[in-house]
């Protein structure tokens, strides 16, 4: 018996629902951050709220993902490795980028909490690229995960 194997389907669903929240809040956050580039700073509070929601959603998604990883590694991945190794390659990139994403999210949150975009515009030189990178990481994770689940999501 592998760790949490019996709860795999339930946890995978919870992982999916938390991902909905994460992608929704972070994509909305991206639109607000693009507004900063256009010189519009009238919705800063809403943007900060999206950051807070995104951080907590990411932590939940990440924790559940780490918990179900052993069952995935034993029950599903061997078939990927044997039949479609390129799929394992896509998955491994997702995991590496996910770890970088966690670090980026913590920095993104603490950075946003400490500065006012309207009065400290020089800090947008890190804040805006990090927002774009986080969205790239999230959308890559979502697309690859959906695709791999289509190929083989359970046993």
């Amino acid at each position, binding site marked *: 018996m592998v*760790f949490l194997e019996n709860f795999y389907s339930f946890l995978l669903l919870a992982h999916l629902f938390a991902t909905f929240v994460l992608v929704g809040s972070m994509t909305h956050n991206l639109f607000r951050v693009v507004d900063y580039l256009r010189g519009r700073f009238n919705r800063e509070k809403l943007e900060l709220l999206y950051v807070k929601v995104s951080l907590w959603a990411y932590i939940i998604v990440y924790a559940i993902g780490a918990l179900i990883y052993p069952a995935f590694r034993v029950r599903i991945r061997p078939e990927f490795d044997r039949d479609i190794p390129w799929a394992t390659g896509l998955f491994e*990139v997702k995991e*590496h980028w996910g770890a970088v994403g966690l*670090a980026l999210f913590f920095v993104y949150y603490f950075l946003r909490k400490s500065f006012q975009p309207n009065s*400290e515009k020089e800090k947008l030189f*890190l804040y805006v690229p*990090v927002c774009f990178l986080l969205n790239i*990481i999230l959308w890559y994770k979502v697309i690859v995960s959906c695709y791999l689940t289509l190929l083989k999501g359970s046993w």
Partner: protein
Amino acid sequence: MKKSDASYILGSVFVALMGLFYCCTMWLPIPLPRYYPLQHCWKWVNQKGVPSQGWYGMQGFAFLTAGVVTLVVYFLLKRAGAAEKTVKPAIIRLLGVVVTLIIVICMAYMLYYEFDRWSILSN
């Protein structure tokens, strides 16, 4: 130094180092613990033919080392009396560009590493 400047510098240092140290686990043969899900145990060796997970060890190493170095930078800034100094906006902008480049390069390397390892590029 303003609190927001300190957060900016320390955050930049942490995230850039985290990316670099994570890549170090791919570049260098650093011994890291691996989880063996069928045996429910952790081992320092990579046993061939037995499913194991090195990802926990890789990220643990990257987060810990980046965290420790960032802490050292924090104490160095404090000791240098950075609280009374101001950071020029140009320095803040330059740091943002450099850190972004480092993260992008690290992410690109991770992509290349796995695509090469699983022969995605050659197919």
